[in-house]
């Protein structure tokens, strides 16, 4: 029967498609780790300083730059995201302003990261005269990450049952006190969980940071206004302008390390997400 045969063929095709996706992933992981894992795990590489001309340079300042950038970005964007989420979920639930804000957020989410990079260059590096520094990158990435952070935070706040708000107000609490003492503490685990995945994005970002933070430094950055060289931007710069004889090894190692980092972050996010779900199901029982 023609229909049955078509169904069988279609099934095979769909299995193939599903397999292709996994195959692509597996292939990338194998190749990148295969070429770079040994370098990446070499302590001289991980903890060594980079060389401008000779072989044997390490990437320690780059790793520190990446962590520093993540910390700064989260410190800037999280309060703003929470504040905005509170406004949209608590103070202005259904209004035209909300709809417009969402439009702006959707637009921000679709902009290419290089546009953010150029914007950061024009505003923070040049106009504010900060020059290339972690702060400029953090502010730029904070805006870039705002849409996704805001959405997850808003969801976490909306998940807090209305009945807590009512109970609080019935005890004579003002709206703000209710938010501060009841809503936010309840939503906090969800908010924290939702912050982990954007960290992966910050770690992998390159186009927005090479124009705001920098691509090469010899020493570990200590000040938010220091120039820095997050790992993703550094390995891009290395492969573009080789610079040192062992640039291939450096890029291989850096790429492998980046891959490991984002995978760790991903699994951390899943783990935290699962723990949070479990806690919610267990804790909210009324017999």
């Amino acid at each position, binding site marked *: 029967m023609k229909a049955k045969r078509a169904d069988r063929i279609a099934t095979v095709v769909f299995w193939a498609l599903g397999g292709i996706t996994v195959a692509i992933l597996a292939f990338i992981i194998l190749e990148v780790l295969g070429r770079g894992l040994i370098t990446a795990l070499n302590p001289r590489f991980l903890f060594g300083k980079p060389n401008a001309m000779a072989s044997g340079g390490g990437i320690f300042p780059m790793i520190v730059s990446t962590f520093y950038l993540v910390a700064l970005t989260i410190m800037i964007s999280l309060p703003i995201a929470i504040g905005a989420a509170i406004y949209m979920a608590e103070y202005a639930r259904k209004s035209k302003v909300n709809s417009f804000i969402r439009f702006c957020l959707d637009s921000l989410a679709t902009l290419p990261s290089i*546009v*953010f990079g150029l914007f950061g260059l*024009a505003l923070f590096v040049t106009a504010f005269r900060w020059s290339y520094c972690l702060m400029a990158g953090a502010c730029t990435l904070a805006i870039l990450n705002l849409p996704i952070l805001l959405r997850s935070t808003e969801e976490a706040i909306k998940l807090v049952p209305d009945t807590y708000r009512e109970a609080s107000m019935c005890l004579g609490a*003002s709206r703000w006190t209710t938010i501060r003492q009841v809503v936010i503490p309840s939503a906090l685990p969800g908010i924290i969980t939702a912050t982990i995945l954007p960290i992966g994005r910050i770690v992998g970002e*390159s186009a927005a940071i090479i124009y705001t933070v920098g691509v090469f430094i010899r020493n570990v950055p200590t000040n938010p206004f220091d120039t820095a060289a997050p790992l993703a931007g550094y*390995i891009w710069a290395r*492969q573009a302008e080789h610079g040192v004889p062992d640039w291939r090894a450096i890029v291989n190692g850096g790429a492998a390390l980046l891959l490991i980092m984002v*995978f760790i972050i991903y699994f951390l996010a899943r783990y935290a997400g699962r723990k949070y779900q479990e806690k919610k199901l267990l804790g909210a029982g009324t017999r």
Partner: protein
Amino acid sequence: MSAPGGGATGLLGAKGARLADRENWIRLVMFGCASVSILSILLIFIFIFKESLPAMRNVGVGNLFFSTNYSPQVGKYGMLGFIWGTLFTTFGAMLIGAPLGIGTAVFLDQVAPERIGRVVRRGIELLAGIPSVVIGWFGLILLVPFLRTVTGTAGFGVFAAVLVLVVMALPTITTLSAETLKSLPLELKEASAAMGATRWQTIYKVLLPSAREGLLIAVILGMGRAIGETMAVQMVIGNARAATFSLFGRTSTLTTRIVTDMAEAPPGDHRSALFAMALVLLLLAMFLIIIIRFVSRERQLSR
């Protein structure tokens, strides 16, 4: 013991007025946070536009946006070739990526047994998290040499860029398509099955047509991802200044041109031209958003 609730008169006194003030002040702060989003998009527009003005004035809007003559050494900054490069690579990526992504989504929704489905889903989420430079590097050291041996061309070029873009846009398309399919009412699938349709018949006669708008939005957002992709494409596309119609020709897109030239462009007309390219990217992105809103509204109406 203090008497918190009691009070002969409940009228708002001085303390009450201060409380109301504080509430208003806090509401204002929260609104300020929310308006960061509005402020940001506005500022981005303003600054990118402002930086593009010198080029638009000195070179001329026609020469800037509608010419393919790009020779910075002699002051020519026509970006039309790169606009074409962006469109060409994006279109190619969608040609491969849309069926692949939607097909995988159908696989997840209809064909895959639960455990395999979960593995594939994790795989897609992991793929989504891989940084652009890593994919680009992978393309550079593997795809390009491979294409070189297989086709005898340089290896760099449009096709390599298309492949890399497919990998980057795939998670977006797949995830959103899978969501759309999942949100289709169960009755739809059951009704079709009850009429004796095979799974494939249900899929292409009932599910895909019903999911049309959602799938379209998924693909459009995938396009947005592809248009905006910078590093990965830059590492494999060859970065030639000429436009090309050949699948294996070396060329540039708007994003890769910016990255390639920015380092050597001192503030001046050249840099301003690069900002003008960013402006085009910005407008493209807004255009996509408007289309999506339009499609979404159609979707709401047809329910």
